[in-house]
């Protein structure tokens, strides 16, 4: 095999495959990091998945991992596996830009809890990945940010989804074997849907947000983007669990998500949400067809599918979420807006302006509406073991079509489960006629990520070809 062929085969491994090969001493962490760095050098001038590549520290960590493994001190399935993080996660001594001129010179004085947990598991941080400014955007692309846009590896003229843009791109293209993003209204699941990877937003409070730049305290969830469902389950087991550093930590331990992956869905009741209310976008034909294929796969595997009604239109979830987001986000970044808003891109400045113009009474009205809406959503969820919905209503639009970019971002089915706090995963379901990924969203009861993963695994086994990677 040529050197390029070897590089491509290593960077096309899932995280767990890589971990197994490392544990079996068939590849070394250094080889893996070198292959990924070479891959970044080869494709990232086009894809822009990274803001800061930490090749030197990654190689040092890889050498340390090799010594440990050789000495019999294997830490587990992620030992020696390289990953990237959205550049809103802090690493002590390393620049965090959050995609913004406002943080151009900012060097973190703390490390995020999730990165500490992954380090303890032996995973190797390869770098800080591209993001919309402060995790904020409507999809409108203005190229007014300090770093070039990330590009979709399936077609570089197409959208990546956001705001965890670089992580989605990197996992699909093989510049990282997995990554961490953050999700306030869809920012893990939307880039996962756009780039054909798995994006998990766990139950609110299960995964620590400590050491990640906040966007909206009441809605923010941190979590993984991965090539496979199994990868996601293993990484969630590693990062989830109580954290005294996070005031909203649910205080529960991480569950066991990988063990039951092969259990299938026989006997499970899966609610399918088809009606999103007035003014909901129409499902693109290929997205609809592949969603139907997912339903058939689940039925064939023994699940009972029932139609589930949302207690309110999608637009209500979006309005309530938006008002809460505007208010809290403004409070977080008030000083930046008051003193340095001229450095902000339009998307962040508009969001801050919205918070600036928001009345307290309206913010509280949204919070008051949130309580019964969430209770009703949970009551609906409890009639099933899991729920199936589209994630996005279309596939990644072409850059230049601003209306389509905004529709992809703002009119997705993701905000339902940010507002309610239920776990929700975006799982690939195939491709459209242009070769762009389609996706579905599986949601579950609070802290029942295990069932969400079981359902996602059946869909993945039926519809996902892990060997098909972007030809870049």
């Amino acid at each position: 095999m040529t050197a390029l062929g070897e590089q491509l085969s290593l960077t096309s491994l899932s995280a767990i495959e890589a971990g197994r090969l490392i544990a079996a001493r068939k590849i070394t962490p250094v080889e893996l990091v070198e292959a990924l760095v070479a891959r970044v050098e080869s494709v990232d001038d086009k894809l822009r998945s990274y803001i800061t590549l930490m090749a030197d520290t990654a190689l040092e960590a890889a050498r340390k991992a090799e010594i440990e493994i050789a000495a019999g001190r294997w830490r587990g399935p992620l030992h020696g596996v390289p990953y990237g993080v959205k550049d809103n996660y802090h690493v002590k001594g390393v620049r965090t830009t959050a995609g913004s001129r406002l943080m151009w010179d900012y060097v973190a004085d703390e490390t995020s809890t999730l990165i500490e947990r992954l380090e303890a598991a032996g995973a190797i941080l390869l770098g800080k990945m591209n993001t919309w400014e402060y995790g904020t955007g409507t999809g409108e692309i203005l190229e007014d940010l300090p770093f070039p846009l990330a590009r979709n590896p399936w077609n570089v003229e197409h959208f990546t989804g956001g705001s965890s843009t670089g992580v989605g791109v990197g996992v699909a293209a093989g510049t990282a074997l997995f990554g961490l993003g953050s999700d306030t209204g869809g920012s893990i699941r939307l880039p996962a849907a756009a780039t054909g990877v798995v994006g998990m937003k766990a139950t609110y409070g299960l995964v620590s947000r400590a050491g990640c730049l906040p966007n909206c305290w009441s809605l923010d969830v941190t979590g993984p983007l991965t090539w496979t469902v199994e990868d996601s389950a293993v990484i969630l087991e590693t990062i989830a669990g109580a954290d005294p550093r996070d005031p909203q930590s649910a205080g529960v331990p991480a569950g066991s998500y990988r063990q039951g992956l092969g259990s299938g869905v026989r006997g499970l009741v899966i609610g399918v949400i088809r009606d999103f209310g007035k003014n909901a976008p129409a499902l693109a034909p290929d997205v609809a067809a592949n969603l139907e294929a997912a339903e058939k796969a689940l039925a064939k595997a023994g699940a009972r599918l029932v139609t589930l009604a949302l207690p309110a239109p999608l637009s209500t979830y979006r309005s309530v979420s938006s008002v809460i987001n505007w208010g809290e986000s403004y409070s977080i970044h008030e000083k930046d807006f008051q003193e340095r808003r001229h450095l902000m891109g339009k998307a962040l400045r508009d969001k801050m302006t919205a918070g600036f113009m928001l009345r307290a009474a309206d913010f509280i009205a949204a919070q008051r509406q949130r309580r019964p809406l969430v209770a009703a959503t949970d009551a609906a969820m409890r009639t099933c073991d899991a729920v199936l919905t589209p994630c996005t209503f279309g596939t990644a639009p072409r850059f230049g079509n601003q209306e389509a970019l905004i529709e992809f971002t703002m009119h997705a089915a993701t905000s339902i489960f940010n507002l309610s706090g239920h776990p929700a995963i975006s799982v690939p379901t195939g491709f459209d006629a242009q070769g762009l990924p389609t996706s579905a969203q599986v949601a579950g009861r609070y802290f029942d990520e295990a069932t969400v993963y079981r359902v996602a695994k059946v869909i993945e086994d039926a519809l996902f070809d892990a060997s098909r990677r972007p030809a870049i």
Partner: protein
Amino acid sequence: MSKDEPKSWTPEQAAAYAAVYGLSPPPDKAELERLCAMGERVAATARSIARMPFKSDEPASVFKVPLQK
């Protein structure tokens, strides 16, 4: 516009609001227009949110003890 229809923000109102809340430097014409536009959008979204019927309907964010630091 009838007296029942919500009124729009004017640039003068937006400028006064910005001054009261200490926005510095003061917004220029383009920014005032954006403040008005976003103000409209925020107000419209807020109006779309149904008000809870009972005074005892509490927000999701109400303070609860013990409060974690």
